[in-house]
């Protein structure tokens, strides 16, 4: 328990979390501080590339076997299953329409790469090792949730756009392609590749993460201001409880496939996190009637800060406890 508090304090007082808080506060205070769209996108490409490459290199060094396949499978199943549970909960506790509930549910099955990066950074800080291939699991968890939600809509008699381009768009969205591609390049080039570019992707990544979180705080804060009215209390409660529920599912799945304590913490983090890049874009195409200010604000303004501050230390504590380190 003591360890958990120390971990939580270290986490909350990290420059990263404080940068998010700074952005959030600046937005609420209506400061004109802002990060240019192109800079925010460039930072996000940088983070995806760096984290993917690092994961690939670590796999090249440690080797993988059937455990990678099991983890990918577990991730895929979690991503597909969580939306169904999330949908049922939302319909039970809130008054969201079928379409809105399905759209929100898709976000919670899918994952947030920045939450994942923050998780690895907390593990690095605490000196806990984790499987390098978890970044591939993150990529595998991006898309299934979307298909799950669209299937839900179909079952409930709604109509989602279902055209040729949509599936390819979902599976080949930029963040999946870059994460998987960088992972593959890191795997292929291994230690030698890392030696050439580590000055770019290893040491500076935490600083880059700070600026990216500052931007996310600004965007989340502004979204929060303008969408306050759309978020009723039950939906906010969902945004705080669903990460824990998803996390527990991730914990169970991770135990079944025998992940290490660090890997377990990351699978819990992925399951607990909610998408804010790929899924919102897919929802605008497939479910235009769903209200974006609900799902975007909930994911970015409620669940993301919750995971960043409280969630990650709890997930790490739970994983180390359960994995019986």
């Amino acid at each position: 328990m003591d360890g958990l508090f120390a971990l939580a304090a270290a986490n909350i007082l990290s420059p990263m979390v404080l940068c998010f808080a700074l952005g959030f506060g600046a937005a609420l205070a209506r400061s004109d501080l802002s990060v240019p769209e192109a800079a925010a996108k460039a930072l996000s490409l940088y983070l995806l590339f760096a984290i993917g490459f690092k994961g690939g290199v670590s796999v090249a060094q440690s080797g993988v076997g059937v455990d990678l396949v099991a983890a990918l499978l577990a991730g895929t199943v979690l991503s597909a299953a969580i939306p169904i549970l999330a949908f049922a909960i939302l319909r039970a506790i809130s008054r969201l329409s079928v379409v809105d509930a399905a759209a929100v549910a898709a976000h919670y099955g899918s994952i947030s790469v920045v939450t994942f990066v923050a998780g690895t950074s907390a593990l690095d800080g605490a000196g806990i090792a984790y499987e390098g291939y978890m970044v591939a699991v993150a990529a595998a968890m991006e898309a299934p949730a979307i298909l799950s939600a669209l299937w839900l809509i179909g079952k409930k008699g709604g109509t989602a756009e279902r055209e040729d381009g949509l599936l390819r768009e979902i599976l080949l969205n930029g963040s999946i392609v870059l994460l998987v591609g960088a992972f593959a390049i890191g795997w292929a080039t291994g230690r030698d590749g890392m030696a050439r570019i580590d000055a770019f992707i290893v040491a500076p990544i935490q600083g880059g993460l700070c600026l990216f979180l500052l931007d996310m705080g600004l965007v989340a804060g502004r979204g929060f201001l303008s969408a306050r009215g759309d978020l009723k209390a039950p939906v906010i409660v969902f945004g705080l409880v669903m990460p824990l529920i998803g996390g527990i599912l991730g914990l169970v799945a991770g135990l079944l496939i025998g992940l290490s304590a660090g890997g377990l913490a990351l699978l819990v983090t992925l399951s607990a996190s909610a998408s804010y890049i790929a899924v919102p874009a897919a929802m605008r195409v497939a479910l235009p009637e769903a209200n974006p200010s609900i799902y975007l604000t909930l994911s970015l303004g409620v669940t993301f800060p919750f995971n960043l501050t409280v969630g990650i230390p709890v997930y790490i504590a739970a994983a180390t406890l359960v994995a019986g380190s």
Partner: protein
Amino acid sequence: MQTHVAKRVEIIIEAVMERRLTAALTDAGVTGFTVLPVLGGGGRSGVWSREGQVTRAGGMVAVIAIVAPERVDPLVEAAFAVVERHIGVISITDCEVLRANRF
């Protein structure tokens, strides 16, 4: 200079729908269009801005197509089919152009 009447159609549409819109325009026989970036805006669904955004959701673009008057109906129908279920605005203005054979 010798000018010819034409129509300027301006479609403000979600960025995620851009590719579908331009494909529909091309199918409808539109020979040219130009896409302008949009910074932000406001409407029934609230005020928005692209600042600091990384998701393509919640961004818009403005597509401008200048066409001969007789082509405006298929264009607008094609555009409307894409915009219909989505956020977006279509406006049509009379204009004059040079080199009429291009439109």
